[in-house]
C-alpha cells in the first residue's frame, strides 16, 4: 500500500482523497512501522519549508534511507522541494539531499506566488506522465522553486517567464512542484501513474 506521510502540515488528506477517488489504496500515517512496509511513499506538503522539514523530524531519515534503498517516492510541492539539498525560505534550511540542487525564491519580475494553472512540457521518458501527451496544464501554488543541478535528473519544465522545474525524476525518486491532487483529471492520471510505478517496483523486489 502507498503511504502518504502525515506530518502536521496542510493538505495531506487531499492526496489520500485523490488516490481513493481513482481506486488506489493509500494510507495516511506517521508511524515508522507502517511507513517501512509501504509499496511507495508520498511526501505531500502545504507549508513553509522550515516548518515542514522540522515537522518531519526523525521521519526524514527513514524516508531518505528507504528512497536510497529503491522505494518509489513522490514529493509534492514543499514535499518536492524537501528532496533537494537546501532552501532559503524564511532562513536557511537543509533538505533531504536526495536530488542535487537548492530551493530559492522565484526570480522577481513576475507575479509571485506562482499560483494557478501553467502549461508543463512533458518529456516522453518521464514515467509519471505516461499517456498524457506532450503538454498539459497543472495547478501550481508556490513562491519558491528548485534550481536543479542534478545531472542524473530528468526534468519537465514549465514556462513562467523563466524555465521552472515543474517535475523531476531520478531513478525511483519523483517530485512535482505542482499539485497533482488538485490538477483535475490530468493530475489524477499522474497519481495513477505513480501507483502503477509502485506496483511494478514491488514486483521487481
Amino acid at each position, binding site marked *: 500500500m502507498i503511504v502518504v506521510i502525515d506530518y502536521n502540515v496542510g493538505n495531506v488528506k487531499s492526496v489520500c482523497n485523490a488516490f481513493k477517488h481513482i481506486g488506489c489504496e493509500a494510507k495516511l500515517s506517521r508511524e515508522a512501522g507502517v511507513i517501512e512496509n509501504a509499496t511507495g511513499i508520498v511526501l505531500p506538503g502545504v507549508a513553509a519549508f522550515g516548518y515542514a522539514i522540522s515537522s518531519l523530524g526523525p521521519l526524514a531519515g527513514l524516508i531518505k534511507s528507504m528512497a536510497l534503498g529503491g522505494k518509489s517516492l513522490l514529493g509534492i510541492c514543499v514535499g518536492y522541494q524537501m528532496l533537494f539539498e537546501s532552501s532559503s525560505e524564511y532562513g536557511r534550511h537543509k533538505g533531504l539531499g536526495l536530488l542535487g540542487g537548492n530551493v530559492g525564491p522565484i526570480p522577481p519580475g513576475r507575479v509571485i506566488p506562482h499560483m494557478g494553472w501553467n502549461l508543463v512540457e512533458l518529456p516522453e521518458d518521464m514515467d509519471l506522465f505516461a499517456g498524457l501527451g506532450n503538454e498539459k496544464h497543472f495547478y501550481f501554488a*508556490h513562491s519558491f522553486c528548485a534550481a536543479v543541478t542534478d545531472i542524473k535528473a530528468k526534468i519537465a519544465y514549465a514556462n513562467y517567464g523563466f524555465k521552472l522545474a515543474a517535475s523531476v525524476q531520478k531513478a525511483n525518486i519523483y517530485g512535482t512542484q505542482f499539485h497533482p491532487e488538485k490538477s483535475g483529471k490530468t493530475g489524477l492520471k499522474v497519481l495513477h501513474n505513480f501507483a502503477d510505478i509502485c506496483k511494478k517496483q514491488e514486483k521487481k523486489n
Partner: protein
Amino acid sequence: MLTKRIIPCLDVVDNRVVKGVNFLNLRDAGDPVELGARYSDEGADELVFLDITATIRSRKTIVELVEKVAENVFIPFTVGGGIQSVEQIDELLRSGAEKVSVNTAAVANPNLLAEAAQRFGNQCVVLAIDARRSKDRPGKWQVCVKAGSEPTDIDVVEWAARGEESGAGEILLTSMDADGTKAGYDNELNKAVTDAVNIPVIASGGAGTLEHLYDAIIDGGADAVLMASITHFENYTITQMKEYLRDRGVPMNL
C-alpha cells in the same frame, strides 16, 4: 505562462449555497458539495466557499463541509468567513482546503497574515477585501468588514499593498457596489489594486456577461475572475466562459 482562472464562488448558509444582490436578499442556489463537484467536473479552475454567517455554530459546519468537498473536488478551493486564528486556518487546511481567506480578522489583528504566511506559506493566505466606493473621497474605496456591514476608514488600495507586505499571497477583491448586480465588475477598482500589488488579484462582484469576464482581465488586470449568480443560475457554463475568453486571446486551461 499562467492561464487566467475561472472561479465559481459558493456563499454558504446552513449547508446551502445562497446568492444575494449587494450582499442582501439571499436566494437558494443548491447543495455546496454537489455544486462544487459539478464545477470541478466541468473544468472550473478553482472554487471559493464563503461561510457568510460565520457564527461559532457555522464554523463547525464549515469544517465538516470542507471535508466533504475535499473528498469530491480535485481542484483547489479556498475557504473563508469568520476566520480569526492560525489554529482555525490550520484546521481548514488539514480538512482539505488549499487556501484560507481572511477578511475582518486581518483588520482587527494585523499580525494574523504574517503568522499564517510564516507557518503555511503565503500561497495559502488570501486577503479578502470587501470594497465600497467612498462617498466622501471620489475615486477611492473603503474597506468594509463583518460581511460588509461595517465600513472602516481604511483605503482599499493601501490596504491591499499592506496585505501583500504582511504576507498575503493573493487578494480576493469584492466590489460591494457591483456584487450580484450582473452589471459588470468594478474595473476601476480592479485596476487600482492590480497596479498597486504584485500578487494575484481575483476580481469579484458584478459578473453578468461573458464580456464582463474579459473586461475584468483586460481592463481590470485581474488574474482570476470570480462569479456566482451567472453560474449558479446557469446562465453560462464554465466551458462557455473559457471558450469565449480563449477565442479572444486570453490564455485558458481548456
